[in-house]
Every structure is written in structure tokens, then in C-alpha cells.
């Protein structure tokens, strides 16, 4: 009864429910002869050393904590998570398999999947949250060694150490110098450790500094502190996760020997609209990438920055590397970070790991020698292991060198708890419901609770590199799985072919959150042919060309097959210049909130943009809340001038010359078209004569996202390997090539109620061209003379003429990234 599994990496886990007196039944059997403990687990070693699992089934009878019962992030009893590399995950139940393939019943897919176990990174079993889940007064302590602990601060001994009561480990005197960060779990205060001591922001952006009695708000500007070496120079590198507002601007310094070096080696990250751009001080671009939907969390953008000794890695939220930046040289600078808190609206920086997470943290490769049914233990090269303690198997990837020898007590191990706690140290021994480890941050061995322990890994040297992915992903509430879209059935069911499965399977569309498509070519609609941009109340948006704007309905030419007629009630806005619109929208909000900038003729300096909030429906609603004295008047329209001035009016007439309006401030007047930015039809509760119309939206919200701005609500009607067929209630039948799709959101955000919107109709910018400029002579223009003509294409490929700016002061900047 010996089977050898050279490549079987066994991670030893404890079953917390056992220790708490709950019943755990594990089916265990080894292929011929089978050994049964309770019920069988079948393990079989194949020739050549590869491990194949014939069947594997675990029943854990125990209650799932209510906090997780509703969530999809925890498996139910009996279920497992299959993890592959690159963060893929599937939840379900393993069942018997043939020909070395695992049969897996996913909770999402209706068909069983047949999976090659060698494609897996690990199988994780259900774990149960141990201890209390009351986080009030508790902190998460992130140590510089990468460990994460949780507990309460009991006493503060000056600036040097704290007495903390750690969950599952008892009291500990924690040296502040060991801390990388402290995260107050309940109050969501993030605190950082740096050469300047501890400090941080709370979520409202208040700067807090550490003090003897806790965290004390201070008025000092954290920027000046962060500007100093943020503890990251030399080998002190960290992985950080940045969550920043939509308008972000922060700088990362390569810390050098002198300030000169710092200036030269500064990297600036900016968010320009929907693009994240990183460039050096010399405007040398490092990368510019569209911000994928996955990086957005609410109004925030999540960017992960990882480091190892040589490079900085910029990753999006799904772990895909956006860019890599190498450190200049071996003896050169490290990386520092400065945050311009004024424009950043930083909500958190999480120091995830002070070691490189790209460096190896691989699992025990322990040869299982046998199974003793009577004693309930696996016999392994490292000794006996209780079967009940096994909760998962990790499969080494081929990139990891197979360890030459078995791990011994004394090896460096890392305990990983399901709640995110991590403890690294020298492994000593197992005990009943606990194990003993000598943490790296303390000389003495400590007894750690095994409650909610998820894995014990052995830290080994070597290189582990994730493979780059270039695939489509199906994202459900239970995980995500790479593969390809095969078809969409009439009932909306989706057939998906996972890359790790030999067979394809059907999944209900209700189970799918989105399909992230690996786009090879970009979706591009010419600004020239479709100069306008239509936003519908359903959330759809796409480029178009306005044919007719009628009083009831309007007609548009679309890139999706001809002209469509759309009821005005469905229209949120017609945009003629999206960049200008955003600017005006912001001005608009601020001016209304001022409450004292009404009327034409106010050409004074426009309010500076100090609030970097996006222009969302809520702020629009706020903006439309008029000062009381104007509330008696019933104006149907709001006219925005290009200067940012605005006026509530009733628009009476409309011609090529401009708009005729009447308002309480003046008699009938004409506003010339060239001064107009927009006319807003107000959907304002105070305007009783304007009736809100419920938009006729489809009940489901399947969205095709073609690019960052183009979004279509559809009913899926079919798919093949090339494209998607769908029916849009607005545009009719569509076919979109997969290569043009960014993602398919199957249960995306529901459309906002129509009452949240105003109708926005924008007038295109038109400017007179009084004197045609002459072509340049090739000589540098002389001050005092007429500027030469500049006619060409802009960055969008549209015609662009310098003369269009006549009437304004122009700064013409010959620039480049070079």
C-alpha cells in the first residue's frame, strides 16, 4: 500500500470543525488497494510520478457562519474551490473521474466538467471561520516580513512597542519597528509605517498620526512626510495596492543618492479620463492603458504595484501586468512614493507584502507514502499527518523546481488563515487544535491556533513566474475561469469551453456576471462619420450622427446598421464634444452650488476645480436644487454658455442663429449659437409641468461593452466563435465580432431610475473664421505678426484647424513624448 507521488504537493491543513466537535467525514481511498477512513478519498499515483485523482469527496457537516452564508466567497460544506494559475477559480463538488480526468460539478455550470488535474494549482476545501468575527476594536497588523496578524491593542508602550492580544495566538509585545502597516478593521483607518513613524489617513482623508493613546488627528500635511523616503529604498520593497479616485495624480520616485537623482527618476501616474498613464519627468511614457472595468470599484480605481528586487510591476485588479519598470542598476535607487493628496483622494494604500509576491512562496512537496486507516493518518516522508488535517492539495507548477529533500521541522513555513492572517516562521510541531511555530519576528516559539487555518506552506527559494494570459474569462459569483465562448442558446444559456476542461459546459446566464473578452483589435468608430455621442437612460452609449432632433423622437445614424429612431424620452444626452461636456458639467455643478453666480455676463474667473468628484447623477440632482428664491419660477430649460455661465430660462425659439429665450432676468433675448455650450431640459421635481416618463427598458441588463464608452443593452440571441448575436431594443438585431468586445456584462448594474436624469441636449460648437491665416513659410513666426495657418488632423484623426480657436487666446504647444 505504497504510492509515490513525486509531484504531489500536499499542503497540510487543519479542519477547525473537528476540533470544535463537529463531524467531518472524509471519503478516502487509495487506488488498489483502497483504504477507507469514514468514506473514501481516492488517490492514485500514475506512472511517471504525476498524480491523478480518481475521485475526491469531502463532506464537512458544520454550519457555515452566517456572515459568509450569503456571500459567494466561501464554499459550502462539501464543496471545493479549484484554483488554477492566474487566479482562476471554480467552485463545486469533485466526483469520480475516468482516464485521469477529474469530474467536477461546478455550482455554476449545469454540465459536469472534465478537468485535467495537472492544469490545477490547488484544490481547497471548505473552511470555517474560527473565533469571533467581531472586528470592533481590532486591528490587522501587517509586518514587514509579510505576516499578517489580527488582534487588539491592549497597551501602548511609548513609541516603541505595543502589547497586543492576537487572535488565536494570545498576547504579544509587538515592536513597532516590525510593522509595515496597521489596519483598523472596524473603523477602516489605514495606517502606514515609515521612517517617520506611523501615520495614515482615515477614509475621510483626515491625517492621523500615532500617539501614546492611539491615533491622533494631526493637521500636518502627510504629503511632506510621504515625500520622504516611504521606507521603500534599497531592499525594502513593498507591494502596494492603490485605490484612488477618478482624478488621480501621484508620483513615484526612484529614490537615489541625491535629490537630483530623485527629480530625474520620478514617475508620474495620472488618470486621464479612462486612461491610466505613467510617464517619467522627461515625459518618457512608461505605459498608457485603458482602465479596465475590473480596476474600478465604485468611484475608485484599484492599481496594484508589486516589486521585487529588480522591477516594479503595475498590475490591474485581476493581476494582469500592465507594465514593468526595471530598476536602473543593482546599486541604484529603490522605489518611493509620493502622493499628491490634494488631487488624489486616496482612500487606502495597502501594504500587502514587504517581500516580493513574485518571489517564491511555494508549498510543501511531501511524498505521501501511505495511509493508515486505523490511525487515521497519512504516512509521509515528513512523518504522520492526520487525515482530518488535510483540507487541500496544492499542485506545483512546472516552473517550480521540485525540492530535493523533504521538509523537516525547522523549515521556514508560512501559516495562511482564511481570514487573511499570515504568520511566517520556523515550524516546530503540531498539537491538538494548535501548532507551534517560531515566528520570524520573535525568538520564542509560539503556539498558534489552527482555527480557520487554511494552509501551511513552506517557503522555498526558486523562481515562480506566472504565465501571461491572453484569454477570455467567464466571471461568476464563485470565481472565474478562462476559456472561450462557444454559443448562446435561445434561452440565454451560455456554452463555455474552459481551457482546463476537456469538455464544454452550459451555464445559465443568471450565474454569469460578465464575460471578459480577450480583445485583439480595438473597436473603433470614426469621429468623422459619427461625430456625436448618444447617452440613453438605459445606460447605453454609443457614437452616432444626429439626423433629426424632433419634438417627440429623434433620428440617428449608428455604426450598428443604419438609422434608428429613438424616442426623446429614452435619451439622456446627446453629446457633441465629450471632453467639453465634462468640463462644463463640472463648472455647472460648482456654480449652482455657489448659488450666487446666476446670469449672463459673468465672465469673471471660472471657479477652480477643487472637487475632483465625477459628475454623477447624485451631484446633478444636487446641482438642480435651486436656491429658494428661484423656486417659484418655472423654467423648463437651463442654458449653458461656453464660458460656464448658465441661466434658467424658457427657450421660446430656435434657429441657426441661436436660441431665443425668456427668463425672469430679462426680456426675450437671443443667445448666439457660438456662445452656447448646451441647453438642458430640466427634469426637476419643482417643474410640475414637466412629466417624467419611464423609459421602456429591457428587464434584463445584458450589456455589450465595446470600448470604454460604447455600451449596448441587449438580449443575447446567439453566439459562435467569431461573434455575438443580440437584439437591442433600440438598435434592433446586432452582430458584434468577439474581437471588438471588451466584455459582456450579464447582470451589470441596473439602469438608474429615469428620475435621476435630466435630458441633456448639446449644441455643437461653431466658431466663425474671420481671417484665413496664410500658410507658414518655414521660418519661425515673428512676434507681432499673424500666426501661420495650422490645418491637419487631431489625435482622433478628425480634421482640426487652428482657426477654430479664433476669438480665444491660444497657447500652441509643439510637444511629444519622444
Amino acid at each position, binding site marked *: 500500500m505504497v504510492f509515490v507521488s513525486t509531484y504531489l504537493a500536499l499542503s497540510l491543513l487543519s479542519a477547525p470543525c473537528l476540533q470544535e466537535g463537529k463531524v467531518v467525514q472524509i471519503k478516502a481511498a487509495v487506488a488498489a488497494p483502497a483504504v477507507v477512513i469514514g468514506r473514501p478519498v481516492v488517490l492514485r499515483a500514475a506512472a511517471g510520478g504525476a498524480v491523478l485523482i480518481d475521485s475526491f469527496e469531502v463532506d464537512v457537516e458544520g454550519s457555515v457562519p452566517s456572515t459568509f452564508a450569503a456571500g459567494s466567497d466561501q464554499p459550502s460544506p462539501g464543496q471545493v474551490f479549484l484554483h488554477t494559475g492566474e487566479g482562476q477559480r471554480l467552485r463545486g463538488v469533485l466526483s469520480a473521474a475516468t482516464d485521469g480526468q477529474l469530474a467536477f460539478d461546478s455550482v455554476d455550470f449545469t454540465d459536469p466538467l472534465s478537468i485535467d488535474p495537472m492544469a490545477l494549482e490547488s484544490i481547497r476545501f471548505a473552511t470555517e471561520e474560527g473565533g469571533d468575527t467581531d472586528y470592533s476594536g481590532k486591528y490587522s497588523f501587517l509586518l514587514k516580513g509579510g505576516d499578517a496578524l489580527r488582534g487588539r491593542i491592549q497597551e501602548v508602550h511609548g513609541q516603541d512597542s505595543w502589547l497586543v492580544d492576537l487572535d488565536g495566538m494570545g498576547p504579544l509585545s509587538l515592536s513597532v519597528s516590525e510593522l509595515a502597516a496597521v489596519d483598523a478593521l472596524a473603523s477602516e483607518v489605514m495606517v502606514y509605517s515609515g521612517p517617520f513613524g506611523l501615520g495614515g489617513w482615515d477614509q475621510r482623508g483626515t491625517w492621523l498620526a500615532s500617539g501614546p493613546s492611539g491615533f491622533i488627528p494631526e493637521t500636518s500635511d502627510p504629503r511632506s512626510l510621504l515625500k520622504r523616503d516611504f521606507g521603500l529604498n534599497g531592499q525594502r520593497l513593498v507591494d502596494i495596492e492603490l485605490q484612488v479616485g477618478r482624478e488621480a495624480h501621484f508620483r513615484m520616485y526612484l529614490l537615489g543618492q541625491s535629490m537630483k537623482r530623485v527629480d530625474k527618476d520620478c514617475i508620474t501616474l495620472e488618470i486621464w479620463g479612462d486612461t491610466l498613464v505613467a510617464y517619467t519627468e522627461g515625459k518618457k511614457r512608461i505605459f498608457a492603458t485603458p482602465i479596465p472595468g475590473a480596476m474600478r470599484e465604485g468611484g475608485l480605481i484599484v492599481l496594484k504595484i508589486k516589486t521585487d528586487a529588480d522591477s516594479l510591476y503595475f498590475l490591474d485588479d485581476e493581476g494582469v501586468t500592465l507594465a514593468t519598470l526595471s530598476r536602473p542598476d543593482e546599486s541604484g535607487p529603490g522605489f518611493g512614493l509620493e502622493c499628491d493628496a490634494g488631487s488624489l483622494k486616496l482612500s487606502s494604500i495597502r501594504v500587502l507584502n514587504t517581500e516580493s509576491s513574485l518571489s517564491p512562496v511555494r508549498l510543501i512537496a511531501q511524498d505521501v507514502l501511505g495511509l493508515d486507516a486505523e490511525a487515521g493518518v497519512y504516512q509521509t516522508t515528513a512523518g504522520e499527518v492526520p487525515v482530518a488535517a488535510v483540507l487541500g492539495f496544492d499542485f506545483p507548477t512546472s516552473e517550480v523546481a521540485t525540492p530535493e529533500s523533504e521538509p523537516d521541522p525547522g523549515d521556514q513555513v508560512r501559516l495562511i488563515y482564511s481570514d487573511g492572517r499570515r504568520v511566517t516562521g520556523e515550524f516546530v510541531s503540531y498539537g491538538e487544535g494548535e501548532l507551534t511555530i517560531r515566528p520570524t519576528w520573535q525568538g520564542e516559539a509560539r503556539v498558534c491556533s489552527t482555527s480557520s487555518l487554511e494552509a501551511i506552506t513552506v517557503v522555498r527559494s526558486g523562481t515562480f513566474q506566472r504565465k501571461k494570459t491572453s484569454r477570455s474569462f467567464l466571471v461568476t459569483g464563485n470565481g472565474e475561469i478562462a476559456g472561450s465562448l462557444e454559443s448562446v442558446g435561445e434561452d440565454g444559456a451560455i456554452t463555455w469551453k474552459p481551457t482546463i476542461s476537456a469538455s464544454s459546459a452550459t451555464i445559465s446566464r443568471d450565474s454569469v456576471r460578465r464575460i471578459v473578452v480577450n480583445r485583439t483589435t480595438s473597436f473603433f468608430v470614426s469621429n468623422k462619420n459619427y461625430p456625436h455621442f448618444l447617452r440613453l437612460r438605459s445606460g447605453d452609449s454609443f457614437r452616432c450622427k444626429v439626423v433629426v432632433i424632433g419634438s417627440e423622437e429623434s433620428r440617428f445614424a449608428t455604426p450598428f446598421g443604419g438609422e434608428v429612431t429613438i424616442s426623446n424620452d429614452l435619451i439622456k444626452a446627446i453629446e457633441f464634444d465629450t471632453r467639453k461636456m465634462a468640463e462644463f458639467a463640472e463648472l455647472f455643478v460648482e456654480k449652482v452650488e455657489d448659488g450666487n453666480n446666476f446670469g449672463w455676463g459673468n465672465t469673471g474667473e471660472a471657479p*477652480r*476645480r477643487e472637487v475632483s468628484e465625477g459628475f454623477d447623477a447624485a451631484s446633478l440632482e444636487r446641482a438642480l436644487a435651486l436656491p429658494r428664491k428661484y423656486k417659484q419660477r418655472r423654467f423648463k430649460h437651463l442654458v449653458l454658455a461656453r*464660458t460656464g455661465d448658465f441661466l434658467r430660462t424658457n427657450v421660446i425659439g430656435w434657429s441657426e442663429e441661436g436660441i431665443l429665450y425668456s427668463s425672469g432676468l430679462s426680456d426675450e433675448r437671443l443667445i448666439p449659437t457660438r456662445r452656447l455650450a448646451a441647453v438642458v431640459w430640466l427634469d426637476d421635481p419643482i417643474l410640475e409641468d414637466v412629466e417624467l416618463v419611464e423609459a421602456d427598458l429591457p428587464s434584463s441588463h445584458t450589456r455589450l461593452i465595446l470600448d470604454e464608452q460604447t455600451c449596448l443593452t441587449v438580449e443575447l440571441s446567439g453566439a459562435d466563435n467569431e461573434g455575438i448575436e443580440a437584439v437591442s431594443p433600440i438598435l434592433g438585431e446586432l452582430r458584434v465580432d468577439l474581437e471588438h468586445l471588451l466584455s459582456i456584462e450579464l447582470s451589470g448594474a441596473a439602469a438608474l431610475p429615469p428620475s435621476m436624469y435630466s435630458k441633456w441636449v448639446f449644441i455643437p460648437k461653431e466658431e466663425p473664421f474671420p481671417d484665413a491665416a496664410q500658410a507658414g513659410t518655414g521660418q519661425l513666426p*515673428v512676434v507681432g505678426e499673424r*500666426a501661420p495657418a495650422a490645418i491637419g488632423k487631431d489625435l482622433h484623426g478628425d480634421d482640426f484647424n487652428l482657426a477654430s480657436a479664433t476669438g480665444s487666446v491660444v497657447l500652441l504647444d509643439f510637444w511629444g513624448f519622444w
Partner: protein
Amino acid sequence: MPGERSLAERYEGRLFELIGVNTDTEGAAGSLSIRAGEMDIPMHSFLDGSTSGPITTAWGVNAFPTQFLIDHEGIVRGIDLVGPALDEEIERLLLLADAAKAERDAAK
């Protein structure tokens, strides 16, 4: 770009336009910068294709970056002004532009 951005923000809402002539070469750095430009470079830019593109050549520009300050009537008022000198000149020209605009509006 931060300089341009702050300039654009400072005169936001005024009769001021920051217009770029992008001289990146198509290909290497250019294509990506242009892609970035599709999104939200703080100024509306010509795509001139290289540092010897048609506009750059016609204007006789051979040092980069070069900036021309042009008034509301299209007259060159300054070349490569920086710092307070630039700000003062822009403010002065804005006054003229505002006055001209008021005049035009009154004529309507």
C-alpha cells in the same frame, strides 16, 4: 503634461485654448502616446506625425518643446514664454479677448 494641465485648469472657463501639435513619430513611442491622446490629454492636439511634420515644418519649429502665444485675432504675441512672464501676458491678452467678445455681443 502636468504643466499644461495646470495651465489648462487655471484658465478653464476663460477665452483660452491650449492647443498642441504632437510631433511624436508614428510607431515607437508615438502610437501609444496617440492612443493616450484619444482619451484625455489636457489639450486638443494636432497629430503632425514627426518633428518634421507639415505644421512643424511650415512654422519653422526645430526646437522642442516650443510654445507660441497667439492672441484672439491670431497674432503671435510671444514665443516660449515661461513662468510669470507667460501668466502676465496671458492675462493681458485675455482682457483684450474678453473686451472684443463683449463688443461682438453688443453688436448682435
